[in-house]
């Protein structure tokens, strides 16, 4: 066998988007390299096969967050940490900020990119749950041009996305969050820091001529082979228990867990329904609260901490005994 076949992937660091697209078009088995947090692990484990890595960190403009007429346009190389902390994101899409804040740990969030996270396509990712509820669109670019794919159509199967050969994610467009009534719940079964076993983002959007109903939009993570989206209508005057019941019933149709070391199908289903209830309950509490100001207001701090035991732990002091 030749020495060539033994080599590790070749790293390219193009300076323009056009060069990136050209490389993706001509190389044998290229892999776009964003933050590298997933790619590095997969390479190390020998489960990712790529002839070339195309690092897009030097492409100007990909790390920009822009306010647009409809909301936000987030470049592919924006880090997860910026999604968590950026004031514009927190103002226009607080659910997204809240969910990005819960991915992995600060080290990963400081490095991982918005585009790479989506392209990874894993069914357990957190950000898609929010992006599904917010009806975001993914910008895909290739040598042939740019197309927009609704995030609700982006995930096509187990670790599969709508990305075609030669394409990369260049941005995500997130419409302004239409209501402040939103929440996220994430449950793990092993270490708190582990991949989630179940996650749910819930967003309640007022509908109807006199805004007498709610559209409950939910994004589910880790509960089926891909991130799942569902929505249902809820009468404005409904009792919380009715809303929870309806949400659970709808979610139960979509939940189709993959059993693994983190739990079996039945357990994950139950946990999924808990995540749905927790997220919907927190969102509903916000929805029925008397509103002060516009629906563009951000989710209050208290609501963010509603969702599960995970959040509380961040405030712990672990060495108080000293």
């Amino acid at each position, binding site marked *: 066998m030749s020495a060539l076949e033994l080599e590790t992937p070749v790293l390219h660091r193009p300076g323009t988007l056009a060069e990136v697209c050209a490389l993706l078009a001509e190389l044998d088995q290229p892999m776009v390299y964003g933050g590298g947090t997933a790619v590095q692990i997969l390479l190390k484990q020998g489960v990712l096969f790529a002839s070339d890595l195309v690092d897009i960190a030097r492409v100007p403009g990909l790390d920009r967050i822009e306010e647009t007429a409809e909301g936000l346009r987030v470049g592919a190389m924006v880090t997860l940490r910026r999604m968590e902390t950026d004031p514009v994101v927190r103002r226009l899409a607080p659910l997204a900020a809240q969910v990005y804040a819960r991915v992995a740990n600060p080290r990963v969030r400081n490095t991982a990119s918005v585009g790479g996270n989506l392209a990874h396509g894993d069914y357990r990712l957190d950000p898609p749950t929010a992006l599904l509820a917010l009806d975001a669109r993914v910008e895909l670019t290739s040598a042939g041009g740019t197309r927009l794919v609704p995030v609700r159509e982006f995930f096509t199967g187990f670790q599969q996305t709508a990305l075609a050969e030669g394409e990369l994610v260049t941005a995500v467009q997130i419409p302004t969050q239409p209501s402040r009534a939103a929440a996220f719940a994430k449950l793990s079964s092993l270490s708190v820091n582990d991949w989630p076993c179940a996650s749910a983002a819930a967003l309640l959007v007022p509908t109807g001529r006199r805004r007498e109903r709610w559209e409950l939009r939910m994004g589910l993570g880790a509960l089926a082979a891909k991130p799942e989206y569902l929505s249902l209508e809820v009468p404005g005057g409904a009792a919380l228990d009715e809303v929870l019941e309806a949400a659970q019933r709808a979610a139960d149709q979509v939940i189709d867990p993959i059993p693994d070391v983190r739990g079996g199908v039945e357990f994950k289903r139950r946990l999924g329904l808990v995540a749905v209830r927790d997220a919907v309950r927190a969102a509903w509490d916000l929805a029925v609260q008397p509103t002060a100001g516009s629906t563009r207001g951000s989710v209050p701090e208290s609501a963010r901490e509603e969702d599960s035991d995970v959040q509380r732990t*961040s405030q712990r002091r*672990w060495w108080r005994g000293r």
Partner: protein
Amino acid sequence: MFSGLHSGAGGAVGERWARTDARAKVRGELRYAADQPLRPCLDVVLHRATRPHALLESVDVEDALAVDGVVAVVTGAQLYERFGDALMTGPAFSDQPCLAVGKVRYVGEPVAAVIARGLVPARAAAERVLVDYAELDAVHDVDAAAAGGPYVHEELRPSTVFGDLKHLRGKRDTNVNYEYKLRRGDVAAAGHDAVERGGVTVREEFWCPPTHHVPIELPFTAAWRDGDRLEILSTTQTPSYVRLAVADLLGIPLNAVRVRSAPLGGSFGAKMYDRLEPLAAALAWSQKLPVRILASREEAFLLTTRHGAAVTGSMTADAEGRIVAASADVRYDTGAYADVGPRITAKSGMVAAGPYRVDNVEVRSRCIYTNKPSAGPFRGFGVPQVTWSHESLVDELARESGVDPAEFRRRNLLREGDVSAVGTPMHSADFVGCLDAVTEAVGWDTPLERVDGRLRRGRGVAVGIKAVLTPTISNAVLQLNQDSSATLLISTVDMGQGSDTIMAQIAAEALCLGEGQVRVVTADTDVTPYDTITAGSRSTYHTGNAVRRAAEAMRDKLLELAAERFGVPATDVKLTGDGLVSAQTQERVSVPELLHGHFGARGTTLTTEANFTTSWVPYDHETGQSERVTEHWFAGAVAAQLTVDTETGRVHVEHLAVAGDVGRAINPTLVEQQLTGAAIMGIGHALFDQLVFDEGQIVNGTLLDYQLPSVLDLPDKITPIIVESPHRTGPYGAKGVGETTIIPLAPAIANAVRDAIGIRFPRLPLTPERILTALADQEASK
């Protein structure tokens, strides 16, 4: 008596000296083994078995050899031809070849070693080794393996290291490679009697799954020939053992093997006895090539594991709440190779009835081969597995007896001078003090808000006992330099426990030296003297005693030199922080002046050395009894307050109080860190940490799937408590502490969960899935 307790004048022992390596570690300047500058070495990558149990019909290395950069591809058959039966190594049984010979016994067993210029060709070539297997029936379940075939080994091959295993040589048709029996009193009669008179018996089947150590630093070994000598640099806790094992393997004298260790980035038992060293040695020696082996994270999971263990336990209390009988049938799954499993089996069998006054005890503890990666030493040495049983049983017994679980234990715990179930008296093991300290810390007797929304709150406690490894040998060589700095030569390996700091403090105490004045030399068998192992929490006591003796001998030498100089008797001279002084004449001399005067030169060294060896009375083969089975005991207790989320099944620990009787804390900060570190590791074992196997294949052998406690899994509050009942022969009264709190940790958590939701979990870990399922069953049975 109590000679160890007279204090040196030094003011070093009991001080919170900073770790000697703290600065270098924080700054990333510490060189671990794989960071050390070495001569250029070739990389070794292994081709590993894909079958749990199979004969090797053929191993075809032709394609692998054709890969550019490959220098050699070596098989077990080749090594066996060269080294014969010496290729079979292991601390208790000589049963493990570094490359499979004729047969593989677990998925992942090394079959062939590729030696290449660089990892890339080595990896590529390893994938091109072609193996033809003739599959054999495999045995994965420990009880099936105990009951009969298939047999993992044709016959038992006890090593020469432990004389008491001799009788097992050549035994065939069994997977049980060792059995320890403890008999005291009459369990059946006493149990029957007690129950007749209103007592209670509880019994349960317990299970602890295999786990992995996951030291952050990966195992690494480099070896090369230097003429007729072999040099090894390795991540090992046992340099003296490795030197002997390699000398035996190669058939060369001890002084022809040099083993250097390096500061370890964690180990917990993962880097001791035969790991990568026999392979590296055999390759370097036979191929005359410098080689290095760096285990990947995934390979590290295959190198050694913590024993999975099944325990059938029972305990009986009389109507007055005294424990009158206890029994345990313990089955350790030692995997394909015995490693130190037989020792674990005995060491834990001795304490399977717990730290209680029980007159009638029956224990059967067996070490059993299965077709899995070999299990070996792990912080706690098998004792956490039996503690899981006795501390769960005692808790149920207390509840059945209608007595508070802490109070019930208090009534039954062994006290100073009591004779333990194994026949050895107790000393310096204050179980009651530990129990009282942790229960008080968590407010055991204060009211508890039991229901908090969907959360259920509970408290639990557990106590642990372990015997220190006995007999063992330690040596220390101390050089006092003319400038009054000191260099200490010992083979203890600092693997994060802080031994370099502790040993410096012990040496400094007798010599009135200050922080930073004693440098501890990293283990190097060409330089540092024999030490049995750095493991089993033994170093502070054993090596510490050797160090103390060497330091005291040095002090005596200084006193003599000063007496000579002053013209007074040595008894008149006193060593202080400022030097030596004559009480009679008030004449003074500093250490630098004294040594300069004595040798007539600057830069000189004064040397002393000392040995510390412990002895035991081997336990009786039928009854397990010994009047002196161990040099000393470890005593610890844990109390936990926690919540169980009844919707998610998740346990959240609010307060964890952990205590250990350490005799005397040489460095309280390091003791607290050990108490805390072991407890955090134990939280993982209690709640989610486990190796999952499917037909002998590890399912979660990566850090993506194998879970350790993260910072977010820590309790809201951890209270480490030092209990000190000085040991009569400990250095300044000290004993070790590394394992103390991991031993009772899991049952303390499970007992608190029992308290919170009324459900007893006999199987570890207490995953949310197990808890939710049990809650659903509880609901259904209402």
